[in-house]
């Protein structure tokens, strides 16, 4: 009763399909897109919020640019949670990228605030960047904990199975 013919799509074909979907390069690309889009939105929002007397047209332009930046960030976040899902190993790489990128962003914003005439907007961007840095560090710690927990369980299972063998 259990002898249906073999599937028309072979194991090797499915493995190729899944291997393509697992591509680390694509994931890194989307993480980079997310970070750049967030940085762009932060810079624009900082400029917008710290300049109270901007002409209406400039304010509209900032709003449009901030909208575009957040749309790209939302798109990248959707891809990373629904399509190119980040597995435990990928999450650590993504979180490290986020920590490095946001740290550079905060340092750059502070440098601009100190050594250029862009004082307030640069400090505002640095403050928003610092919040992103805190989130990135929290994500790194949490992804590290998750990875370690999985590795520990994996080790325990491998020991149990080898004892039974």
């Amino acid at each position, binding site marked *: *009763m259990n002898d249906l013919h073999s*599937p028309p799509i072979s*194991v090797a074909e*499915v493995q190729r399909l899944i*291997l393509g979907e*697992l591509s680390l390069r694509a994931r890194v690309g989307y993480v980079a897109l997310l970070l750049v889009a967030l940085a762009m939105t932060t810079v624009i929002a900082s400029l917008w919020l710290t300049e109270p007397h901007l002409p209406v047209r400039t304010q509209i332009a900032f709003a449009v640019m901030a909208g575009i930046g957040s749309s790209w960030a939302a798109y990248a976040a959707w891809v990373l949670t629904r399509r190119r899902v980040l597995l435990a190993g990928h999450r650590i790489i993504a979180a490290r990228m986020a920590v490095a990128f946001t740290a550079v962003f905060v340092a750059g914003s502070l440098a601009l605030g100190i050594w250029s005439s862009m004082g307030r907007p640069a400090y505002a961007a640095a403050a928003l960047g610092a919040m992103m840095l805190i989130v990135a560090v929290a994500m790194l710690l949490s992804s590290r904990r998750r990875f370690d927990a999985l590795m520990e*369980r994996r080790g325990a299972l491998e020991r149990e199975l080898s004892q039974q063998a």
Partner: protein
Amino acid sequence: MIENDRKQDELLAIRCQLGEPSAFDALIARWHEPLWKYLRRLAGDDDAAAEAVQDVWLRILRGIARLRDGSRLRAWIFGIARRVAMDRLREKYAEPVLVSIDDRDLVGADDTSELKEDIALMHVELARLPVPEREVLVLFHLEELTLAEIAEVIGIPTGTVKSRLFRARRALRDQLVAKGMNR
């Protein structure tokens, strides 16, 4: 043995959750054929089942990070397959459900051995059962899931699985008897 299988399943799930490509290869090698057979029986034809099985694998890849208990891997995988199959059946059969019987389901058309004829007849009659009865028979007798796992896959209480299984066996037996199979 069942405990050992569960541990193997959990280990495989964890390796996938860690993101090891070789674990996905092993997962596919282990489950592709059972999934295909299950979907083929529910879908009724090769093309629909082939499309469905690819969809199932993509959903497995995208969802495995959220699987909390790896020892439930088997029920989780068949649960995804069932949802995909049911979604597709709903789309396909806005009109009445008709199950096509592929010639290749009929084992060895020119084979005269009684056993092979019986198996062929069983395939045909199984495919003619309504989907709810067919899927419990397939999951229990062919994929060897436990009653609790089937309950999880289908999303109904274990008691309902038992009664549905009883009804399905009786319906299949009645159909086989009506076709003159009395052994």
